[in-house]
């Protein structure tokens, strides 16, 4: 499939100052769900540098089309039609091929299709809210959906989540496993959200804001947002004590 050489090095250490800390009291649920002891640092073993792979055969025709993958034949989801696209690279800038991306989101009114969801905004009978795709040889991906609405959530008495799409990402090793959220350029609600503000560094938050991409809109159909994702880089194995596979 690819003539890129297989990589078996350990991943770069995660910058825990860049990620949100476990304990962020303004996001109240984190208070009793955050480990309090120091994490045990472990240079990667085979158990962390390996990971599952998912083939393109997994994907159904509409998996990357949230406008239609839950809709009745001939119908489509209600909302502002958008394309979300971008590239998955690692910290070295190398494209991550074959990365499984799964995404989920509220409908255009801010309502999730979930048993526990209580927001009074209406369900869209033609919108499920989940999709998935796998990056190509160079790490690129794209999917079609409707722009999600903002929604209220029980934290403070008047807390609202900015519009966002949740992403689950698989790289090439289990240590690269990541779940994050994509926000939309120009949304003033990003900066008042306790979950966003669990990230201490403004530049790190900006890394989660997708840019409106006028070059890739589909005229008279859908606007585009570009969202690149960076996974952990990995070291070369060349000069490690024991050559892997030799």
């Amino acid at each position, binding site marked *: 499939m690819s003539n890129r050489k297989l990589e078996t090095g350990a991943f770069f250490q995660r910058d825990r100052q860049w*990620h949100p800390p476990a304990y962020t009291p303004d996001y109240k649920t984190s208070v*009793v769900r955050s480990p*309090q002891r120091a994490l045990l640092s472990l240079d990667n073993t085979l158990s962390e540098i390996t*990971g599952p792979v998912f083939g393109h055969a997994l994907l159904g025709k509409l998996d990357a089309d949230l406008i239609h993958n839950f809709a009745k034949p001939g119908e489509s989801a209600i909302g502002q039609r958008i394309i979300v696209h971008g590239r998955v690279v690692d910290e*070295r800038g190398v494209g991550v091929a074959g990365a499984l991306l*799964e995404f989920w989101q509220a409908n255009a009114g801010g309502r999730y299709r979930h048993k526990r969801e209580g927001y009074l905004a209406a369900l869209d009978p033609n919108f499920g809210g989940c999709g998935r795709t796998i990056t190509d040889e160079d790490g690129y991906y794209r999917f079609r959906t409707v722009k999600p609405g903002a929604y209220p959530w029980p934290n403070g008495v008047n807390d609202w989540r900015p519009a966002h799409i949740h992403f689950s990402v698989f790289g090439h090793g289990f240590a690269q496993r990541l779940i994050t959220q994509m926000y939309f350029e120009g949304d003033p609600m990003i900066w008042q959200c306790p979950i966003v503000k*669990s990230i201490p560094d403004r530049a*790190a938050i900006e890394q989660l804001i997708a840019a409106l991409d006028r070059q890739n809109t589909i005229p008279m159909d859908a606007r585009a947002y570009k969202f690149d994702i960076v996974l952990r880089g990995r070291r070369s194995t060349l000069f490690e004590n024991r050559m892997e596979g030799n």
Partner: protein
Amino acid sequence: MVQSLGFLKETPSQTAGPYVHIGCTPNFSGIAGVYDTDLGAAMVNDKTLGERITLRGRIFDGTGTPLRDALVEIWQADAAGLYNSPSEMRGTADANFTGWGRCPTDMETGEYVFETIRPGRVPYKDGRLMAPHVTLWIVARGINIGLQTRLYFADEEAANAEDPVLQRIEHRNRVPTLLARREGSAYHFDIHLQGEKETVFFDI
């Protein structure tokens, strides 16, 4: 001035939130017809080699309440100690074993369950064998970045005693937090996010 190393920053994590099931296990969450099955629901088939085992347990918050909205993923070697991954350079793993499983915790009881096989031993970086273990990754509402830990088997006493990772745990009274105990036909492995019994979590 020197040349820039040019490394990018990893995309920061955000919590999986309360509706992680919609994206990762839509059939479990009641969204039918989009995917045939939920990914990671079956790790074995009837041709998989090795001893069948069940792993089950719950995840407790700092008040002792089980999480009923969490998602657990596991990753493990096959019965011969090989990973079903392109980065596995030592041989070819059992094609009838995925090595990867995903399970949402039960919405009433908070229990997770995996039907899998007992993993073989995998070498540490220096060639010493690690004890049989399963790698876990846990996400949920209120967890800002996925938690990584390992499950070892309490009845593998000799292997556990020489495991290079378990040996690195300075506070020996915390080692049992990583040991699954056999109860009937299943291994029980509870995870404690906080408190006296807080599970050892790894920065891997």
